[in-house]
């Protein structure tokens, strides 16, 4: 049984490695750092595989580890921003010319808000799944989503209703 679970997890990870890399990259914005995040998450997940009791939660369980790793790197990296990735736009002013496109605007959100937006709109997760991944309750996720959408509207000056 244990062996079986480990193998299921291995197969899941191999099949979805590119999605993991993208999510990590969207936080750390750097190839090597993203590879590190993916590797560390996999090592953590496998060595703790015994704590995964029900295989149907494998996806949200793994994403939770991945997201934590990504955010840790992101916070550490924020103090050391490489020159080429310094955001080129200052905080938005009233001038429409300074407004960001939606993709760049997402980076301006807090890490938790970024998670909700990316998991919901880029990874097509349900709100319940996002709650499991982020460890927040469903209402918190809903209000975070609402708040993030409002912020994005201000940042882009566009109606970003979905």
């Amino acid at each position, binding site marked *: 049984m244990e062996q079986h679970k480990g*193998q299921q997890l*291995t197969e899941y*990870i191999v099949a979805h490695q590119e999605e993991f*890399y993208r999510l990590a990259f*969207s936080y750390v914005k750097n190839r090597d750092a993203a590879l590190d995040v*993916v590797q560390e998450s996999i090592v953590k997940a*496998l060595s703790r595989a015994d704590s995964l009791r029900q295989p149907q939660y494998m996806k949200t369980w793994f994403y939770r580890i991945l997201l934590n790793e990504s955010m840790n790197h992101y916070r550490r990296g924020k103090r050391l921003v490489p020159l080429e990735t310094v955001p080129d736009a200052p905080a938005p002013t009233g001038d429409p010319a300074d407004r960001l496109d*939606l993709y760049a605007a997402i980076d301006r959100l807090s890490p938790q808000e970024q998670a909700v937006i990316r998991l919901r709109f880029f990874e097509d997760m349900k709100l319940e799944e996002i709650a499991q991944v982020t460890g927040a309750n469903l209402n918190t996720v809903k209000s975070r989503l609402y708040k993030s959408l409002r912020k994005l509207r201000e940042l882009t000056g566009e109606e970003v209703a*979905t």
Partner: protein
Amino acid sequence: MNHSWQQARQRYQEIETPPELDFAVASALRAGEKKRRQRRGVRRSLSAGLAACACFALLVNTSPTFAHAVSQVPVLGDLARVITVAQYTVEDQDHLIDVRLPALDLAGDTDLEQRINTEISTRIDQVLREAEERARETRQAFVDTGGDSAEFMPIVISVDYEIKCQSEQFLSFVLTKTETHASAYTEYYSYNIDLQAGREITLRDLFGDHYKEHINAAIAREIEERSQNPDNIYFIQGEGGFTSIADDQRFYLDQDGTPVIVFEKYEIAPGFMGMQEFPIPLPEAR
């Protein structure tokens, strides 16, 4: 979903994954698996230790000769033990290999010791050579069919052993080789030694001349029994299902000395059933 969301989503999905990703994932999987084994290994050796103690106590109580004999042997396990003689790791673009190579240490019977140790090392050498050959072929096929050689997912091989029974009378251990390339496959080689007679044990020694009939009937009954559960599926007789054990049937002795017949994954049942084991109790009078 409106236009700007579609654009943002597309940009996200266009984040390029580097060619090193496959390799990074494979080596992380290996490192994680190793960590997990270490954790469980500690637990396993603890429980094996306890079982050995239980077995020991029982024998001391039932046999005065044994108690006397033990009093002269300071530490049980001086007579025979399995030790790790080599532990190494190979890591390159084609494969990740982890080996823990056992050897037998028999006090007083160097012939048997040598024969078994030579057999183990020859077998491991051959297994690794074949695996390397296969890794090369697979990689070649991958490149020939248009794959980028940098994206080749390395083959992961791990060789390990487990001691199943260690008593005054018997020593039984199993050597495993697991090869993982998308899905995992494990091969088992078992070694069962009668320490007092100084030779390998056969099923004939344990069950007498009619060992095949006896064991076949027991396994057939057990398959019947297990098939009552709809989750368990075995191949049907005549369609690759179980008919008879082989002449060189693999088995090991468990902690109580009960022989356990082993069938590899796919041998008598679909892959999801995994490896199949059948403990066959020894006949009463022996």
